[in-house]
């Protein structure tokens, strides 16, 4: 009976998820009708603000109109993607004006469009009644409860399965990754209690992609997860790599330069949907350069035996300077659509960065765990001289690990620059090194080197992103996020620290013994 407990949780969890999917359909239907009526694809953040946070109809209407207008203003194109209604209205006005004898403009300009949007009060034409907003809101909240609850029950089921397989409960309690997962579950429970809408998931027809905070967490954690795969092994070697953030900037700078830099051709002076060099070069050159820069770190650490923090500090300090020199201090922007797919496109209804992350993680895991390489890394991390005596070329191992980390930082840089469709040598990848190191440590890999856990790092990077998304969601300013991040991380670290874990393990062991005694 007791062993089957996880089944109950699992079935219940899946049932809740299924009910969540039902609401998913409802929300999508309402959203679809809004988008169809008014085909301006305004961002989901403002959509959420309008339909979740506003209290009365007047503010909903005002904010909705403002959001539509803002989207139109933000739109990159000179002629906004307008719904047919608006275009017709604009043409009608023009016709009237022409009839009145004024000079007719050749096409609808953005200013005209904005005026018409402002006049036509989109809320009244598209939504009409407040009850529609309310029903959407209820569906949204219920979906959040069901999806969040279902997710948590499934996680509990997984935990129970783990527990029943591995009889040594004390060992599970002692494992750092357990505490990381518990922390993640606790954060999600708090979310579920305060704001169930946090868990809503919907489908955005305009770019064929699922949308929601859960998806967003995984999507936004992509860069750190990818870098974290390399960082885990660097830390397993007993080092740290501080240069990854600067490499992200270098990679973005190179990619943008290859797409935009052609001083002779006047066609290429303004941003547009083109690339100067072939797209394959745009992808490969940054990755190759980052690989070489990572290898440079590896040579410093492996051949010259420098302390990794200082060796990688060199590229951390000068990397952003190099990125500035590559672009000559310019900030290029581009609209090249294949490049946009990397960071903003969708693949299998998910944001592309998630798919890229899955591929990269799978490749690294196969390379590390299906070959002897992972064992080499661990043995060099535990005792370099002993592993040298047993025939492992530690210099080569270190070189490969650092070069791989550089390569992965390059991939992250491409994703980052594709998200903003620009290069930003000063801010791209800022603090990535600390976030990556934190994810690795939260994931249970020890800073003193030795055994490492790639799965743990994924959990760690998702926890960090959850904290940030969670704090943003409750409307804290981005700068102050750090304080909350620090508090939550401090709690996790204290829970994970050796004395606390040992104490918990002892307690649970003692309790198990007492229970066993009573049963007998």
């Amino acid at each position, binding site marked *: 009976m007791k062993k089957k407990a996880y089944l109950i949780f699992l079935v219940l969890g899946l049932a809740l998820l299924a009910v969540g999917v039902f609401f998913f359909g409802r929300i999508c239907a309402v959203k679809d009708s809004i988008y169809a009526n008014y085909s301006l694809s305004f961002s989901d953040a403002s959509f959420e603000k309008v339909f979740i946070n506003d209290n009365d109809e007047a503010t909903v209407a005002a904010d909705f109109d403002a959001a539509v207008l803002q989207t139109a203003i933000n739109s990159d194109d000179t002629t906004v993607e307008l719904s047919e209604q608006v275009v017709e209205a604009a043409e009608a006005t023009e016709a009237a004006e022409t009839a009145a004898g004024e000079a007719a403009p050749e096409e609808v300009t953005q200013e005209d469009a904005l005026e018409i949007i402002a006049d036509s009060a989109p809320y009244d034409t598209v939504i009409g009644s407040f009850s529609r907003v309310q029903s959407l809101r209820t569906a949204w909240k219920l979906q959040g409860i069901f999806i969040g609850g279902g997710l948590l029950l499934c996680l509990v089921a997984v935990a129970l399965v783990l527990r029943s397989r591995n009889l040594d409960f004390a060992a599970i309690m002692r494992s750092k990754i357990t505490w990381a997962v518990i922390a993640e579950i606790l954060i999600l429970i708090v979310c579920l209690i305060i704001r169930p809408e946090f868990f809503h998931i919907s489908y955005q027809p305009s770019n064929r992609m699922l949308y929601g905070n859960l998806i967003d967490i995984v999507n936004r954690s992509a860069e750190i997860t990818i870098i974290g795969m390399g960082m885990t092994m660097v830390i397993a070697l007993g080092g740290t790599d501080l240069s990854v953030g600067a490499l992200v900037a270098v990679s973005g700078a190179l990619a943008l330069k290859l797409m935009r830099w052609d001083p002779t051709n006047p066609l290429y002076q303004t941003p547009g949907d083109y690339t100067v060099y072939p797209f394959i070069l745009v992808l490969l050159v940054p990755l190759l350069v980052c690989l070489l820069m990572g290898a440079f770190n590896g040579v410093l650490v492996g051949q010259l035996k420098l302390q990794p923090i200082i060796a990688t500090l060199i590229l951390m*300090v*000068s990397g952003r300077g190099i990125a*500035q020199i590559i672009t000559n201090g310019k900030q290029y922007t581009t609209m090249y659509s294949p490049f946009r797919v990397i960071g903003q496109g969708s693949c299998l209804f998910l944001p592309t960065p998630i798919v890229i992350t899955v591929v990269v993680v799978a490749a690294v895991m196969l390379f590390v765990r299906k070959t002897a390489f992972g064992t080499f890394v661990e043995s060099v991390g535990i005792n370099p001289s002993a592993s040298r005596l047993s025939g492992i070329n530690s210099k080569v191992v270190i070189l490969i690990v650092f070069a791989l980390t550089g390569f992965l930082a390059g991939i992250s840089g491409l994703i980052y620059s594709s998200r903003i469709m620009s290069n930003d040598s000063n801010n791209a990848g800022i603090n990535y090194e600390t976030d990556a*190191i934190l994810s690795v440590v939260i994931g249970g890999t020890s800073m003193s080197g030795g055994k490492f856990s790639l799965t743990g790092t994924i959990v760690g990077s998702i926890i960090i992103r959850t904290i940030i998304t969670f704090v943003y969601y409750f409307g804290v300013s981005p*700068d102050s*996020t750090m304080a909350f991040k*620090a508090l939550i991380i401090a709690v996790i670290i204290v829970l994970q620290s050796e004395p606390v874990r040992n104490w918990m393990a002892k307690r649970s062991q003692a309790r198990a013994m007492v229970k066993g005694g009573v049963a007998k």
Partner: protein
Amino acid sequence: MNKKQSLFSRIMNPKYIMVYATVIIFLIIYAYGAIRYGSIGFTTLRTFVNFFSDNAYYGISAVGMTMVLITGGIDLSVASVASLTGMIIAYGYERMGISPVITMLVSILIGIGLGTLMGAAIHYLNVPPFITTLTGNFLARGICSLISRESISINHPLIDSLAGFKITLYHLVDGEWVKIKPITNINLTVIIFIVMIVLGTLLLQHTRFGRNVYAIGGSESSAKLMGLPVGKTKVAVYAINGFCSALAGIAYVLVVKSGWNMALQGGELEVISSAVIGGTLLTGGVGYMVGTMFGVLLKSVIPAIINFNGTLSSWWGKIATGALLLLFIVIQQLVVSYTGKKKAG
């Protein structure tokens, strides 16, 4: 025993070799600047004093950092704590009307408190220093942003008079004291910097506490077996470092006369790299305050040369700093392996 050694052999002790390497590199770069830009004022005393005042706040913080590094730890929170200090002083006076004297004391207490807390977590909970102090960094920076997200300038007579305090240098010309030309001033931050270096040297070289710090850095388990108060010393070192960061924050306020939540971003690595350039080993056990001081000076010389050149863009400065760091640690490494071989041979 020590007294019997000749002065020469005491000075040429191989344990000082890193410090000498720093000094020599400083002299080489200084000489390069003097030859290239001597005619436009690189060799004046004012330029030299500016090397001290340009990065005085990093120098003050580096005093505490050197001790932390000698114990084998690291502290990434120094810049945020300094920034928090500035913010507390600025917000306290400009928005709440509290006298800077009180807010300075409060922020020094906060620095010491945060340092103690981190030291305790590092020693008693066995959390790696890197992670503990990184969390401290986020915390201090986050609190800073919670207090205010905009730069607040400070207009208080005390701050103005402290910032304006300076000693003008005179020299003897034909039996008369005249001001050195160009007029050379030593301001308060430089005085604090030098006093802190002297105090740090005294603390490290001439007290039991200092010897404990070196012993812990050499081997923590041996120190423990020898019965040294490892825990107390480590916590004290982080507390001292917290004090130094708060003091550095005050020095920074005296320079910029404002508090900003994003002030000194990335400064912790400037401080750490100054100490490392000065010959402190990140693995612990080795390091001298004098070396750290020259490390800080080296950090001011390179931008000065780029300034005097006038044609190089600021991002070349970053690359030059990186290249210098590379050059320096490679030399360090060669020196270490050379002396190591000599010993072994």
